[in-house]
């Protein structure tokens, strides 16, 4: 299906990052090798873009510019950025409602994402989807799903399509530790392994399903073992370390592309903010959050590595500046883009029916 391009959504060169550009051609498994300096810089840039974008979204929510639910990805950036580093052209991404980071890492335009958050015509869904419901056929981003766990069979279906067509692509299906308790996840595990579908089940374990910790909700807290009875290999990965994530992703993708079926990656990560904007996060100690930020922050880890490698503060400041500009542009666009035309209320419901010519 051809993606619709909105005239109100100018292509942003700066957002089409090098990482996204690189994915335009298929490349072989990049293995578990450490990041080159350039790769570290790119990862830093990508993760920082997501973080600044999310901070801005939080701010705009506070200003009443964004409505409804808004789930921020702050703290989890290394998961999507690391995995995208191991992806090739045509690999699909599908996730739940904490989806802004995934969209940006897929190369979707931050302007279009932010304008969707504000419900404007320039948004990816013309303002009709909102934070939880955005898609880009062009960038192989399949949503953005608001029902916890629903994306898991959907992602398994993307993998089914890959196998049906005999292409070499993998469907990366993201869900949280909360969704990991939904029955449909296990229905999907069963079919994915039964039919050897190329699906990576990425469990983003940020340790809290809304306000319920993993220990309070899961009989087996090691979620990477949840595929054991289906014979799906799984492993726990330091989801705060972008290198570890990419290495695990590369391994899983090699497995899938070899026709061996699905793979489970449990990404041990952490969200700094509440579940949604209205969550005061009283179920955990402030110290716990502070400790994570200080000791495990995914962006800080790369920053330190870059400085150690001799990259100057000025270079990093330039990156920061660049990113602030992209985010400021996105925020401005999201406020200047008009609300959807009232006629849009009645569009995109069904396509013309077969046989009627209507």
């Amino acid at each position, binding site marked *: 299906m051809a993606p619709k391009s909105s005239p109100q959504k100018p292509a942003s060169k700066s957002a089409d990052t090098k990482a996204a550009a690189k994915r335009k051609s298929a490349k072989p498994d990049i293995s578990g090798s450490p990041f080159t300096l350039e790769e570290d810089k790119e990862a830093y840039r990508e993760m920082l873009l997501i973080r600044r974008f999310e901070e801005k979204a939080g701010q705009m929510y506070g200003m009443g510019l964004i409505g409804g639910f808004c789930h921020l990805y702050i703290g989890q950036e290394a998961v999507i950025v690391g995995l995208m580093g191991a992806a090739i052209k045509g690999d699909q991404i599908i996730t739940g409602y904490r989806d802004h980071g995934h969209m940006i890492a897929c190369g979707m335009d931050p302007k279009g994402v932010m304008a969707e958050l504000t419900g404007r015509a320039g948004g990816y869904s*013309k303002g009709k989807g909102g934070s939880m419901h955005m898609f880009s056929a062009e960038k192989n981003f399949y949503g953005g799903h608001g029902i916890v766990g629903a994306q898991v069979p959907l992602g398994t279906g993307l993998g089914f399509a890959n196998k049906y067509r005999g292409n070499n692509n993998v469907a990366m299906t993201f869900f949280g530790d909360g969704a990991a308790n939904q029955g449909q996840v296990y229905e999907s595990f069963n079919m994915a392994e039964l039919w050897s579908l190329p699906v990576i089940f990425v469990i983003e374990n940020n340790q809290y399903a809304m306000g319920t910790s993993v220990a309070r909700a899961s009989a087996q807290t090691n979620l990477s073992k949840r595929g054991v009875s289906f014979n799906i290999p799984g492993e726990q990965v330091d989801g705060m370390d972008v290198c570890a994530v990419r290495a695990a992703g590369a391994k899983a993708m090699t497995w899938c592309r070899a026709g061996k079926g699905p793979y489970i990656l449990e990404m041990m990560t952490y969200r700094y903010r509440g579940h949604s904007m209205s969550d005061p996060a009283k179920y955990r100690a402030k110290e716990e959050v502070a400790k994570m930020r200080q000791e495990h922050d995914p962006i800080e880890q790369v920053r330190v590595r870059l400085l150690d490698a001799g990259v100057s503060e000025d270079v990093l400041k330039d990156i920061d500046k660049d990113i602030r500009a992209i985010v400021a542009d996105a925020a401005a666009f999201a406020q200047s883009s008009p609300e959807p035309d009232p006629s849009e209320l009645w569009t995109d419901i069904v396509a013309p029916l077969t046989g009627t010519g209507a």
Partner: protein
Amino acid sequence: MPTNILMPALSPTMEEGTLTKWYVKEGDDVRSGDVIAEIETDKATMEVEAVDEGKIVKLMVAEGTENVKVNEIIAVIAGEGEDANAPAPKAVTPAPEVKTSEPDATRAPAPVAFSVAADPEIPAGTTFKSQTVREALRDAMAEEMRRDEAVFVMGEEVGEYQGAYKVTQGLLDEFGPRRIVDTPITEHGFAGLGVGAAFAGLRPIIEFMTFNFAMQAIDHLINSAAKTRYMSGGQMASPIVFRGPNGPASRVGAQHSQDYASWYAHIPGLIVIAPYSAADAKGLLKAAIRDPNPVIFLENEMLYGKTFDVPELDDHLVPIGKAHVLKEGRDVTLVSHSHGLTYCLDAAAQLAEEGIDAEIIDLRTLRPLDIDTIVASVKKTNRLVTVEETWPVCGIGAEIAAAVQAKAFDYLDAPILRVTQKDVPMPYAANLEKLALPSAADVVEAVKAVCYR
């Protein structure tokens, strides 16, 4: 005293079958559990085991006999010491489901005293062949799978078993397991998987063994399939068909006897189709498979074995969203869909004898509803009765009544009446089930009420 072996009922809806093979001959000794015969129904071929022990005295029905009625005597067994030459035996046990002499519309529609109108969309001069709804549905899928490599069928028992209701019979042989995919019993999972495959551009046909089981999966039908086009601003869609038998079957109780028509017809983003005839089943299923929208295709088990004329066209497509006037009439409009039409046709035949000329509209598609055709009819007849196997509350009839009073209020000479299933869960007991279902008599009564007769 010799024992009669009766033609067994092998499914809830079986009325007759073919005795394809005898595994015993006269004079053989049989013991309980021995396979004695093979019987083919419209749904399956099954072996029959002996229950009683003794010597086969007589085979009453020759091998290969078709249309052997349930409970017909097929063989006689004499026990040890029994006189094999005893007088002709009488039926031993009354059938649990004795056919009453009064017509039962759910099982054997009374002959219709008029011919139903041909679909005006079918070109003049077209030849027809006689086909069951079941065969027509299978042909529709096969034709579309030959036409488009992206079309595949997925569901429980669709492949090796040849379909729980034999609708997919033969498809595995032609298309292989890549495109005829047997699933585990996992409705929620495979419905979602199908929608994901549709997002990726494939054209899945997802069979639910019955729509009762689709409740396990309904989140994907509504939240994932129906809403994505809108939520994505038109960027992404799910061209998928969910099909399977819907509505009351026969004696299967409350959890397996429910009409979901109004559930799905409620949802913007879905197309809902519920055909009656084999020709429409074929033409509409082909259209549904090609349609870019998610389609809920509601079949009916009671109609699967019913035979209709199906046009012999290379590509018989019936337009989605158009009702068909099955019979023209002056005095009252009957609107129904799927199996509900059997009550209407039966009632119309009875009404004709009493001088009431009913017009019958087969909705065919429930969403979008072809209100224009109904309104045009009501403007002519000034009276309307809706007939459906759904419960009355918020049913299709309620929707039609609301629309018609808004668009043709001044043309109505009587209140619109609805004939529906009674507002109770479906009972198992034969008499209660019959009371719960709508009937031709209910339709006749409603028509007389709106005609003030």
